[in-house]
Each structure stands twice: as C-alpha cells, then as structure tokens.
C-alpha cells in the first residue's frame, strides 16, 4: 500500500469513536466553505466525508480523515483532496464493495462507497488484507 504522510495535509481528524464522524464532517465542512466551494458542493463533500469516516469507525475501528487544497492541472483553479486512511482489516472484495447495494453489515443500503464515488470528481481506493484501506477523492471548485 502507498505511504500516507499526515504532515502533507492541511487538516487531519482522527476517527476513533462514533462522535468523531460528526466532528470530521463539521471540520471538513468549515474548511471547504472557507475555500469557496458552493453550498451544494460543500454538502456533497461533507456527506462523502460522513460516509468515509463511518466506514473507518465501523470496519477499521480507527483511522484518519485528511484534507488538503489542491492546485488543478490548469494551474489556476483549485480543488480539494480528501483521504480516508486506516490500518484496519482491509476490504475483502473490493469489486463488490464498490457495487450499489453491497454491504457486510445490517442496517445499511450499501450505498456508501458507490455514493461517495458519484459525489466526487475523482475516486481511488486501495486496500490490502490486514494492512488497511486508503480512499482518495477530490473535487474541483466550481463557480456555480
């Protein structure tokens, strides 16, 4: 698995108890609001963070939500990159996990990861049995 260095991020929120899900999404909401994202993109990003933080809490027990500003390729537009990073058990069947409706838990639509993928502009996931899971997503800042 790739190496994630928390020092390279503007914000890091540790997830270790249920309440940290709300804390992570509030902190991220504040940051992207200040970065000038539109209300509906702020909502999408906060919702994505809520899903990713809950997965960390539920399936890995502990991990981090990281955020950093990101220069887009065109050089002038900025965006945000968000990483959900844990050293938990990893995802058994990655293909299935990305499919709508797949879940290993009760009380769930199984729309977390596929939902996050649809909400964000880019999505990548890496997972290794016994080593953990890294989800990296990003979103460009749009004017409207």
């Amino acid at each position, binding site marked *: 698995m790739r190496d994630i260095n928390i020092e390279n991020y503007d914000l890091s929120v540790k997830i270790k108890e249920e309440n940290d899900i709300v804390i992570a999404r509030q902190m991220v909401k504040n940051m992207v609001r200040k970065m000038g994202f539109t209300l*509906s993109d702020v909502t999408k990003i906060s919702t994505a963070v809520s899903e990713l933080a809950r997965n960390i809490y539920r399936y890995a027990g502990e991990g981090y939500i990281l955020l950093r500003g990101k220069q887009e390729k065109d050089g002038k537009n900025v965006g945000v990159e968000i990483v959900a990073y844990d050293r938990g058990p990893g995802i058994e069947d990655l293909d299935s996990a990305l499919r709508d409706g797949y879940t290993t838990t009760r009380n769930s639509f199984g729309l977390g990861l596929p939902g996050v993928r649809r909400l964000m502009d880019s999505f990548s996931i890496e997972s290794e049995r016994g080593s953990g899971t890294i989800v990296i997503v990003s979103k460009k800042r749009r004017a409207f």
Partner: protein
Amino acid sequence: MKYCERNSGLSTVPVQIELDDSTVGALQNQILSEIQSESIDGIIIDVSMVDVIDSYISYVLSETARMARLMGCHTVMCGIKPSVALTMAQMGLRLTGIHYAQDLDHAIKILERIVGVGKQGA
C-alpha cells in the same frame, strides 16, 4: 429533538442541525414509542435545519417510516434543503415509504389527503 406540535393524531418532529448516529437511533425510538403510546396516524419529520443526510441517516429514517407504517402511521418528511436533496439523489439514496413535502403546511395537507388526520383540527 423535541415534539413541538401535536393535534388530532398528528405529530411533528423537528430534527436538530447535526444528526449523529446515536441521535438518529434515539429519534427512531422516540418516534416509534410515541406512535405506540398515543394514537398517531401521521408523523411529520421536519429536516429543514439538517445540513447532511448520508446513507446511514437515510437508512434509519426509511426504516422508521417502514415500521411506522406497520403500526398504521404515515410519515412525511418536510423542508429538506435543495443541496441535501441533490446530494441524496446523486448518491442514489431513496427514502422508500416516505412522502415529501416542501413545508409544514404542505406536509399537513398531504397527511389529510392520505388518512384524513388533522382535519378535525383544521
């Protein structure tokens, strides 16, 4: 969360701004026990203050509506913010068994139409 309005078999539940996982569970319990102990045919869940509805919150609200229906009660969700509705739609979240209303008045009208509750009070 507290119940602010109650008349003629109808109960309104305003949901607080930040819904964490245990709060949404407590909300479900409170709604279902209220339906059981009082005679309520219509529940209005007011989410006009809520900023984020993710898949777990959706699931619990959906499940609540389903269980309420089994107990003879209809559920209407009102005041959902456009940005929240947009996000849910993009994720593919659909709250089955829940009616949607723009605001409280609209929610009451919907319930009146479905089950005739609230009419006595109106």
